[in-house]
């Protein structure tokens, strides 16, 4: 169950400067827990104190915003690509 995860610049210090890493999990929540195992400290940066994905982070599975899917319950399968992206970007 390997999923490719794109890591945003501000978090690359925690992934030894890798812009993408591999992780496992059958949904987004599990994926974040797995990332935390390999890159300690990552989870508290992606999620707030209640464990929910922070307001200023958007997560995409195969280019689709998970808010159009099942949020952090969105299921994952082998070969999927996940992007973690700061919400603050863009503007026409």
């Amino acid at each position, binding site marked *: 169950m390997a999923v490719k995860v*794109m*890591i*945003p*610049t*501000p*978090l*690359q*210090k925690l992934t030894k400067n890798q*812009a993408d890493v591999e992780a496992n999990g059958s949904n987004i929540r599990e994926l974040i827990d797995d990332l935390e195992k390999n890159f300690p400290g990552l989870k508290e*940066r992606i999620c707030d104190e209640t464990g929910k994905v*922070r*307001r*200023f*982070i*958007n997560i*995409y599975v195969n*280019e689709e*915003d998970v*808010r*159009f899917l099942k949020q952090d319950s969105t299921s994952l399968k082998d070969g999927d690509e996940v*992007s973690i*992206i*700061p*919400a*603050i*970007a*863009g*503007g*026409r």
Partner: protein
Amino acid sequence: MSYVKGLKCRECGREYPKEPLYVCEYCFGPLEAVYDYERIKKKLTKELIESRPENLWRYKELLPLDGEQTCGLNSGFTPLIRARNLEKALGVKELYIKDDSVCHPTLSFKDRVVSVALSKAKEFGFNTVACASTGNLANSVAAQAAVAGLKRYIFIPANLELGKVVGALIYNPILVAVEGNYDQVNRLCSEIATIYKWAFVNINIRPYYAEGSKTYGYEIAEQLGWKAPKHIIVPCAGGSLITKIWKGLKEFKALGLIDRLQTKIYAAQATGCSPIVTAIKENAEIIKPVKPNTIAKSLAIGNPADGVYALATVKETGGWAEDVSDDEIVEAIKLLAVTEGIFTETAGGVTLGVAKKLIEQGRIPKDESIVVSITGNGLKTQEAVVEKIGKPIKIKPNIAHFEESVKI
């Protein structure tokens, strides 16, 4: 000469140095430039501003450069027009158009933000700039980067209007048309920005870029004789412009350049893409993203980066929000053209259409000063109106046929 102390997270307050950074490493909140207002207050007077050339750099102490401006030297200071014919048509007493459809050099308010972004990118030493754009930003980055001698990568949704594609290509950028909507282009650019160390004006240069929008608000206040209007209607895409107009007016008040500030600010969107307006109407705390479907492509951002701040601006000022259909957009474009002689793009149709609606609803009183924000030029979005205006009357070159064909 710099009056910028550094960057600061809008959410958690953590401070950062003046670098090409845009999000807080800890909470992912947006970073914003922090100014030394005490020093600015000692220097920046009405007289000093008025003595300077008529472009956006007349407010340079309030813009985030360390050195002198190098790009967009003639941008900004567009006309604020007293719209007497439109006043009659809408039944109001005092209405103005702030007309950025004639901003230099690429005919939209984006020339303001790009002037600041590219001046800053040059200060940082970048030789390549890039952006994700629905068109106006593409045109401005392509043009101004060409002048500045910077390599330029422009990413647009593939379905953009021809006028905006030509308006970028003429400046010979590397223009990448992405099969997808703006939100997809933007996400792709965020991914590209993590790999290629370019100056993405609306990503890693964003804290500096966005400050350029404040000049739209400064100019409104200066051109009204150093006072703020009672009502401003602003088009919303990512939600940055509306936030920065309000910030600019608050700065003018804090610096004593205007005496009073009781302006209500209203958000305008197209019904086919109205996540910000919907949140305001439903009094929601968060913005629910949408998949855009509207002719107002320059406003078609379903996932607005500054949405929560746009929401906060409307609430803080006691304004409101409204949306208009594609038909109403076209009607408003035509209304502005025949009353004031201004041909605006679809975003301007949205703004005027919403202004009209809010006046009809009684949300905006008829006897107070109103400013309608016109941010782009209609020649770039001709597809939106070409089937909905008249056609030329074709005749043979003689008087008889003229009189036969044209009813006089």
